[in-house]
């Protein structure tokens, strides 16, 4: 094992802080909470076997005529992992909870794209594609 420089160690702390959820980040300044440092062994990164074009997928999701079609787009081999779905969720400003199952994340993406459009059309009475 090679030794890290103090700067590299500090960078690891900064990265750990950046991974905190919004609620945890706000607790950093809360005197009711203490900070403990817990070290965990690094997991091997999964090698993505199929890459996806997030921009292209987003465009297709936005244009989908139904939630079913959007779900189909998110059930391909390339969208079976959290790491594949999270960039899409982030691009849509969807909050990501680490505890959420893959299905929940998928549903949120569908609702943020085609779902919101269908709701809007239904209320405005502009006619929903059948």
């Amino acid at each position, binding site marked *: 094992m090679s030794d890290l420089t103090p700067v590299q160690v500090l960078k690891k702390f900064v990265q750990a802080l950046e991974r905190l959820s*919004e609620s945890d980040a706000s607790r950093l300044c809360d005197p009711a909470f203490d900070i403990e440092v817990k070290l965990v062994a690094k997991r091997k990164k999964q090698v993505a076997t199929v890459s996806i074009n997030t921009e292209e997928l987003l465009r297709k999701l*936005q244009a989908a005529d139904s939630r079913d079609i959007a779900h189909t787009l998110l059930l391909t081999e390339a969208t079976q992992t959290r790491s594949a779905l999270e960039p899409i969720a982030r691009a849509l400003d969807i909050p*990501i909870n680490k505890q959420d199952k893959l299905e929940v994340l998928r549903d949120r993406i569908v609702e*943020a794209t085609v779902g*919101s459009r269908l709701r809007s059309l239904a*209320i405005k009475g502009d006619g929903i594609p059948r």
Partner: protein
Amino acid sequence: MDVVAVINYKGGVGKTTVSSNIAAELAFRGKKVLLIDTDPQASLTFSFITPDLWDKKYKEQTIKAWFDAISDGQEPPPITDFVITPPTVNKRLGDQGGRIDLICSHLGLINVDLELAVLLGGVNMKQTKKNYIKVHGKLREAISALATTSDYDIVIIDCPPNFNIVTKNAIIASEKILIPAKPDYLSTLGIDYLQRSVNELVTEFNEYAGTDDDLDEISPEIMGVIFTMIQITSGQPIAAQRQFMSQTKRLGVPTLSNYFRENKSIFADAPQALVPVVLNRYTHPTHSGVVTEMENVTTEFQSLL
């Protein structure tokens, strides 16, 4: 003279806070502003005068009294007869020459709609159309007259969270519509309801107005959604709100880039002081930050007029 309606179908989204603070900042910058409160809850009215003073002095001089004349089948008096100049806020406007005037609301305004509805209909289509214009176009007529007889730079109409005849009068009278909305699921649905109702109203009014050579068609423009009650973490709205802000933009609705932040400590009792928060100077950095954000909203608002 600009005429702007502030409305959302959803209640409790901050319509009155938006109307009063934008009006106050515009007046502070030297503009002459007329506020019209068309919400029977009279929240805007009671943000500038106390309910006891209203009861003693102004309750016969409200927008309800103006509409009552129409309900009675009479030509309403000039709308300027109903204008008051709230003293407390106007003392805080500095020396730029600005002014805030107000036409108060009345808790009984809620019943005016039924009385106005009686005037609708007619023995034939021509009469029906004439009555429709008579009932729905009166505020437009009155405000158009203001443009030549008063020194107002802008009229801001605070609307109730419904689409009754009084609200329709306000929309028909306006050139622009500002939509305050909380970035949450139900409030953003309210934006869609509103767009639908406005489109239907414009179509209906213009169809009827087409039969009268003296009437111009209306085309009120949605100037944008102003997001309210924003919670900030790490310098930006929290993720739960950000998703609905982004979603609204994706649906093609124009949105203002500046917003009103949630801050109960300063907003909760501001109306009681009869001076909108934007005119206060705070030493606490968070509170002064809220004021700066409202000043930025007003600058953006002015750029959209």
